């Protein structure tokens, strides 16, 4: 397995704010990564650092084996259209698609045209006059059709409706199957992209709190539902991630169970339900917040 990104001890400070705090991780080639976290967690800053758009306060970043800062060799293999991407004042969508191929060697014009139809994007209208969703779809099309070996999508679908979002997921998966590349997708619509992701990075208050294979992560917690007494007896001294209770019933989320433990739970008359990625991350983020408060 080869890595396209190696980050170690990376810190970015804005004044007194620690936007990225001593982060170390790597990104393997030709996988789809989810970079998840709450607003202001440091997702965009981290991606700006990886793409040489911002400068690290300390630590090291290697992308394709080299520092990305002012490095054309690295940067021409990267596509990064931000959520808040600004387009030149007088541009229409057609100007974006006319100029993009000059900068992306793998640009596929046919694919771009198909996407333009899928998203029903008006090419001849000034970008200023487009709706928020239409502007987002421009970024999505550029990100997909550029087929850059390392592609970043930063909250790509602000204002996109559910149909357009599902078109995006479908096209991304189809094209990724034919043209494998590394994709880093940042979003807070976690459940929507859950099936797309192969690896999950969760960032919270500038720190990576989860760096795990998506499959492993999904199996890492289970919710046990049953009568309070039975649930408590089963849970015992295990770490509880979350607890809900109504009357005599309880629903407790605990760390993943192996086959034997599952059988034991079922024998005890308990019901086991999987935990969605989103719930899991919410639980884990809360945990880290509490820990943070304690240590602060």
């Amino acid at each position, binding site marked *: *397995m*080869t*890595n*396209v990104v*190696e980050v170690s001890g990376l810190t970015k400070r804005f004044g007194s704010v620690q936007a990225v705090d001593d982060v170390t991780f*790597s990104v393997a*080639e030709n996988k789809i990564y989810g970079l998840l976290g709450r607003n202001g967690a440091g997702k965009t800053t981290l991606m*700006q650092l990886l*793409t*040489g*758009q*911002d*400068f690290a306060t300390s630590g090291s970043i*290697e992308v*394709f*084996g*080299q520092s990305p800062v*002012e*490095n*054309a*060799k*690295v*940067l*021409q*293999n*990267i*596509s*990064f*259209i*931000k959520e*808040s*991407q*600004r*387009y*030149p*004042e*007088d*541009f*229409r969508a057609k*100007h974006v698609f*006319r*100029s*993009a191929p*000059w*900068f*992306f*060697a*793998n640009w596929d014009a046919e694919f771009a045209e198909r996407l333009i139809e899928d998203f029903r994007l008006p090419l001849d209208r000034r970008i200023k006059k487009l709706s928020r969703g239409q502007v987002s779809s421009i970024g999505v099309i*550029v990100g997909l059709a550029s087929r*850059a*070996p390392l592609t970043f999508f930063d909250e790509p679908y602000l204002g996109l409706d559910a149909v357009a979002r599902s078109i995006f997921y479908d096209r991304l998966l189809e094209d990724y199957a034919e043209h494998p590349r590394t994709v880093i997708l940042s979003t807070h619509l976690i459940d929507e992209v859950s099936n797309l992701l192969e690896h999950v990075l969760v960032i919270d208050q500038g720190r990576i709190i989860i760096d795990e294979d998506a499959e492993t992560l999904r199996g890492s917690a289970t919710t046990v539902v049953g009568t309070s007494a039975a649930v408590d007896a089963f849970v015992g001294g295990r770490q509880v991630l979350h607890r809900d209770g109504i009357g005599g019933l309880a629903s407790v989320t605990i760390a993943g169970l192996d086959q034997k433990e599952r059988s034991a739970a079922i024998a005890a008359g308990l019901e086991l339900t999987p935990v969605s990625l989103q719930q899991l991350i919410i639980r884990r983020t809360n945990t880290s917040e509490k820990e943070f408060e304690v240590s602060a």
Partner: protein
Amino acid sequence: MTTTTVAGHAPATPLQRILNVVRLHFTNPWTTIVLPWMILGIIFVASLAVWWIIFANLPSDADRADAADGLQYSGGINYIFVYMMVVAIQAISITFPFAQGYGVTRRDYYLGSSLAFVLLAAMYSIGLTILSLIEELTHGWGFGGQMFTPVYFGDNWMQRLFVFFVTFLFFFFVGAAIATVWVRWKATGVTAFFIVLGVILIGAAALLTFTSSWAVIGNFFAGAGLLGSFAWSLVLTAIAAITGFFVLRRATPRAA
């Protein structure tokens, strides 16, 4: 586990990358080329109408010569120089964050933008020079009017070409420098920049006044002559261009 070296497609040469940025600036030629010529055309038509009115109401040759004397100080095209400063500011402040999304380095972006400005300066100065030649050949478009041949742009077309060109360069690169300050430090930076500039200019004026040295400045320009004075602007242009480069090298495409 190994780390890949830069793989993928054949990398573009440095020159190609810079030329791509030039093309990016001309992707939509409306603001940089079409609109300025249109405004110039409108000013020209309006001037033509004024010249015609003057010409038609001055029957004697002596009166007409008198009027022509006044018309040689025309400022009809001066707007275009200032407009190009605005074009440079807009071009950089808006295409910089965009180009960063396209994976363009700051270095390539600045060099490409500079080349685009030099090309624009060349296009506009050649265009204005050609118009000034037509103006001479037609004796002021038939009415003794002067829009492209004001006295302070030189005596012949070669001088005018030079004066137009260096003036355009000056405004483009001062605009570029201001834009890089904006891109890097936003409104705070631009405000600070103009305060510092104001202090320097007032300080210089005070110094010259208190030491009674204004004559030195006058003598300098008199000694340099028209062309020499314009040539000296290249020093300021170069300072602006180099400053812009270093300011942009550490700029980030953050939202305003």
